[in-house]
Structure formats: structure tokens, C-alpha cells
């Protein structure tokens, strides 16, 4: 009946939640399985992806970025709201509607998922409450204004690190309290089962499109596919298109100060067992990154599994390296990336590969203040 035994990627994943939520996760899983097989759902989602989000997003071959190499960018920055987050938010809004939930809670770090959640809630007439660390609200003030403009209530989280980790905990506590009326619209492929799988499948559209587009453009698969990893949803979505192609290297790039995969250990956070920045007692540590979207001490359980199995590699990039890549892309290609995918670019440009495909998960408007301060 419940799927505590399923919902694992190797030893990672599961459902480590207070009992109050277990039935809601069962309900969500059932609803998701039903809706997935419903041709009406697929049709509606595809229509909205095309007409509302702007899919398929282009695959752009850079001109001046890397001499002597082909580097392609999957342009999720051109999605409505400026990041891949809308792919997930849109799908989850359809699920919430199917489950009869009128109220949405979400967490946000940089504000990109919060904006995506507020956007789809406006589109579907759902009530929206977004939890955001007060530290992040100060760093990402324009996104707070956008969410409010879209009709969402933004609730500051004033304790602990005042960032994404605490915002996620508060969103889950709200869900525990209002579980009968509320859908928790998680923003990444983290959290208790079925969220990692559900978010991964909603983001897999990125990889499906990219695979088709690169074959069309080059007549072959890329040598490497590179994406930034915070919680890891844009990476898991992009990797999904290539994970069965054994010759394609999959490379995830973490912020050096938030390298849950590179320097973490197994632990439990926000409902799932994964690789975390935790100490020897299992207490969760602080992440540090110039990019609010990567500033998270956990990561999706599927990434931990892909790391252990060797199918994907995970590398760090420092704040400085990301900033350099940010400027380079702006100056050489006329594209201002978000700081998150700038981490992926930094590593991609060093790769010894002729053909690389990089996930450009979002645009950089939100980061201008941060970058100009440096």
C-alpha cells in the first residue's frame, strides 16, 4: 500500500517524514501515477509548455565562447519566468488541481522557484504561500516583489541560516499543519518519495528536447553534458535525455562551498536520505555560495546514486570561477546567465571534449546586484 520500500535510488531517497504526512505522500503518489497515464494530462501539459512556457527552448551553439570547441547551451533561461523551474511548477499545479488542493505552499532560495510557483498559481487561480529565508529576501529583493505582484504571500523565515534550508523546513511544517487543503510544491528533485521522481520526470523534458536537438544539429551525441547542481533538478532533467547513452559523460557542477556530493556524507534531510553537508553526528551544516540557488546542504537522492554508480561525475566550482564564466558569457555571447549555471559553464570550458552541451538553467537578471557588488 505505501511505498516506503520503493522510492529509493539504491540506498538513497525514501520517506523520512512525520507520520502526519505519510498518507498525503501516498495520495500524491497515486494522483501522480493516474495523471501520468492520462492522455488528457499529457496534452494539456504539452500545450501549456508550448504556449505559456515557450517550449521547446532553443539549443544554441556558442560562437565566440570557446575557440576550437563546440559548446552548446540548452536555453532554459528563455523559459517564461526565466528559469527551468516553471517546468516543474506547471506540472505540479496540474497535479494539485487533480487532487483538489486549492492552496499551494512552496519554498524558495534565489526566488526562481517561488516566482514559478506564484506564476502558475496565478494562472490556475490557486492560493500561494512562499517561504523564503530573510537573508535571501534581502539578497533577492526583486524576486520578492515579483512574487507579491503575482498575488503570492511571501513569508520570511527568521531563524537558523535564514536561507533555503530553513525555508524548506518551514514549508514542510506548514504542509504538516494544513495537509488536508494544501499541496506542497517542492522546487527541486529533493524531499520524500515521490517528489524526487516526480520532479525529475517533469524536468526530463529538458533532456528529451536537448537530445533531439543535438542530433539534429550535429548528427551525433555530445561528448559531455554539463549542468549545475544545487538540489539538482535541472541537471537531473538534462541528464535524463542521455543517461542511457553510455558514451556521454554526465557532469554535475556544485558550488565549492555547497558540495553535498563532493564532500558530503549520507544523512537525512527534508524527508530523504541523501548525500549531505552533515557532521559526524548527523547535524546538517551550512552551505556557502554566491549563488542563492546552490546554497543548499542537500541534494536529490538520484544524484547521490548516480555518483556512487559512477554514471555521473560531480565537480566543484568556486564563486570566483562562476563569476568569471558569468562575465565571459555576457561579453562573448551577449547572454547574461544566472550564477547557478555559470558554475557549470566554468567547468565545461575546461573539458577535454570536442562537443559539450551545457544546461543554461536560468537568466542572470536576478544576480546583477550580487555581481556588481564584487
Amino acid at each position, binding site marked *: *500500500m*505505501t511505498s*516506503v*520500500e520503493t522510492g529509493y535510488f539504491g540506498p538513497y531517497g*525514501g*520517506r*523520512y*517524514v*512525520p*507520520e*502526519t*504526512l*505519510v*498518507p*498525503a505522500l501516498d495520495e500524491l503518489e497515486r494522483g501522480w501515477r493516474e495523471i501520468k497515464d492520462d492522455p488528457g494530462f499529457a496534452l494539456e501539459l504539452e500545450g501549456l509548455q508550448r504556449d505559456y512556457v515557450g517550449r521547446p527552448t532553443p539549443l544554441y551553439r556558442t560562437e565566440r565562447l570557446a575557440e576550437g570547441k563546440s559548446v552548446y547551451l540548452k536555453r532554459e533561461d528563455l523559459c517564461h519566468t526565466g528559469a527551468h523551474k516553471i517546468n516543474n511548477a506547471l506540472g505540479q499545479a496540474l497535479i494539485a488541481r487533480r487532487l483538489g488542493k486549492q492552496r499551494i505552499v512552496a519554498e524558495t532560495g534565489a526566488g526562481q522557484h517561488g516566482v514559478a510557483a506564484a506564476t502558475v498559481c496565478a494562472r490556475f487561480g490557486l492560493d500561494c504561500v512562499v517561504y523564503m529565508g530573510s537573508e535571501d529576501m534581502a539578497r533577492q529583493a526583486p524576486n520578492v516583489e515579483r512574487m507579491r505582484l503575482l498575488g503570492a504571500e511571501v513569508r520570511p523565515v527568521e*531563524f*537558523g541560516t535564514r536561507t533555503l*534550508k530553513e525555508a524548506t*523546513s518551514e514549508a*514542510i*511544517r506548514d504542509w*504538516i*499543519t*494544513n*495537509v*488536508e487543503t494544501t499541496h506542497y510544491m517542492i522546487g527541486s528533485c529533493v524531499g520524500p518519495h515521490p517528489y524526487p521522481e516526480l520532479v525529475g520526470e517533469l524536468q526530463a523534458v529538458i533532456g528529451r528536447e536537448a537530445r533531439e536537438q543535438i542530433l539534429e544539429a550535429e548528427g551525433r551525441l555530445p561528448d559531455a553534458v554539463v549542468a549545475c547542481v544545487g538540489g539538482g533538478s535541472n541537471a537531473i532533467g538534462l541528464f535524463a535525455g542521455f543517461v542511457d547513452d553510455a558514451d556521454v559523460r554526465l557532469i554535475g557542477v556544485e558550488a565549492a562551498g555547497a558540495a553535498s556530493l563532493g564532500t558530503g*556524507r*549520507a*544523512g*537525512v*534531510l*527534508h*524527508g530523504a*536520505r541523501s548525500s*549531505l553537508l*552533515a*557532521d*559526524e*553526528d*548527523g*547535524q*546538517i551544516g551550512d552551505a556557502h555560495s554566491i549563488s542563492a540557488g546552490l546554497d543548499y546542504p542537500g541534494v536529490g537522492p538520484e544524484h547521490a546514486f548516480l555518483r556512487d554508480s559512477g554514471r555521473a561525475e560531480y565537480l566543484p566550482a568556486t564563486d570566483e570561477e562562476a563569476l568569471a564564466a558569468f562575465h565571459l558569457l555576457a561579453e562573448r555571447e551577449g547572454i547574461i546567465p544566472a550564477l547557478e549555471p555559470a558554475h557549470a559553464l566554468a567547468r565545461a570550458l575546461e573539458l577535454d571534449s570536442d562537443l559539450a552541451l551545457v544546461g543554461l538553467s536560468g537568466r542572470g537578471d536576478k544576480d546583477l546586484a550580487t555581481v556588481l557588488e564584487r
Partner: protein
Amino acid sequence: MKRVSIYLMAGKKTPELAAAAVAGGADLLEIGFPFSDPLADGPVIRLAGERALAEGMRTKACLDCLAETRSKVEVPLIPMTYASVLEAYGYERFRDDATAAGATSFIVADLPLEAAPELPRVHLVAPTTPDERIRLAAERTDGWLYLVSLTGTTGARESVSGQLAALVQRARKVTEIPLLAGFGISTPEQAAAAAELAEGIVVGSRAVEVAEVEGPSGLERYVRSLRTAVDDLAASPAG
């Protein structure tokens, strides 16, 4: 006799506070092993956990605290914590070391009842838990069932949740095991109201607050007020 269970956060003063709670009439003590990200807890216990971690109450220190508490009281002692702490320490190792330090059972707020069968523990059921799952929890639980009397996190509320009566009724249909109601119970009136429905009560946030502000003597008075309210109920004809 109805049971009164008191939750205390592990800390330097805990053994003394535990003795005071027992002197006031506590039958059972839950000792919080703090975790950095406690999803089931409201602000009072979350902040107490932050303070405990800041004063160094890591797993080893909590086990020492448990052993010292055991030397002062004879009631059952139940460490209450989160899965990440056990993941790091090892479930079986934790079971063995905590038992050696005097633990009589365990509560893990975010470990579903299917997981880690090697760790015997008191299971929680909530107003959202279906009957079949309550039955399963009752079969597997260690001695009694912890009723989460509301959909929400730990912390004081205005009144006892209206959801508790229905939960007790559903639990009664599937099990004879003792039921203790917790979450949102803080005043003697609420203790009496909840104990009228169940075999006992669990008080956490308010006890932690009283312990912090008023020390052992204040905690003893507070626990006695709960004890009296619950006992008066049993003595009265309506009880």
C-alpha cells in the same frame, strides 16, 4: 491510573530537571536528542534544540546525559530524536549504547514505521493516519501508541484539538494498547481533557519552557499541576 509523560531537551541541567519532573508526578520521560532541522517541532522545541546544540549536546553528550538522568530517576526514559542523528551513529549501535545508558524505548519523529525494524520504538499516529496503518503501528509499537492529537507541529495551543476524540475512537477499534496523547497539550485543563479520552498525556513544549524559565522547582510545580488535574479526573464520578 492515567500516565503523564514529560519531554525534556537533553542538556547539562536535564538530570536535575528529570528528578524534579518525577517528584512532580511524571511517570515517563522523553529526552530530546537535538537535531539541526527538526521537521515535527514548533518554535519552542526547535529553539531548545538550537540551544542544546550550541552548548555541545551532540549524540555522545546526550548519551552521557541519559546515563546521568538514569542514575537519578527510575521511570522509563525514552530518547526522542530524528533519523539523521541515528544514520550518523548507526541504528543498532544507538540502540545498544542508549539501552546501556538507561533508555527503555525510542521515538524517532521522522522514521516511518516500516523503516529500521532493528530499533524498537514507540510509533506515532496522526489524525491523517488511516485505520489500517493505525493497526500496523499498534502491532509494531513498543508498549504504547503516541497519538499526535492534531495535524501540526509540537507546541502549545488554545485548546485540545477536536481531532483527538475521533483519533482515539479509531485507534480503540483496532487496538487495546495504551494510547498517550501529545502535541498541543500544555495546561492542566487540557491535560484533563485529553486524559479523559486517552490513557495518558505527553507534554513537551510547555515543560521545556517552564524548565528553562523557572528551573527544577518550577517544573516540579508545573508537572504536579498536570498530575493533579489528571488524577482528579480519575477520582471524579464522571472519570
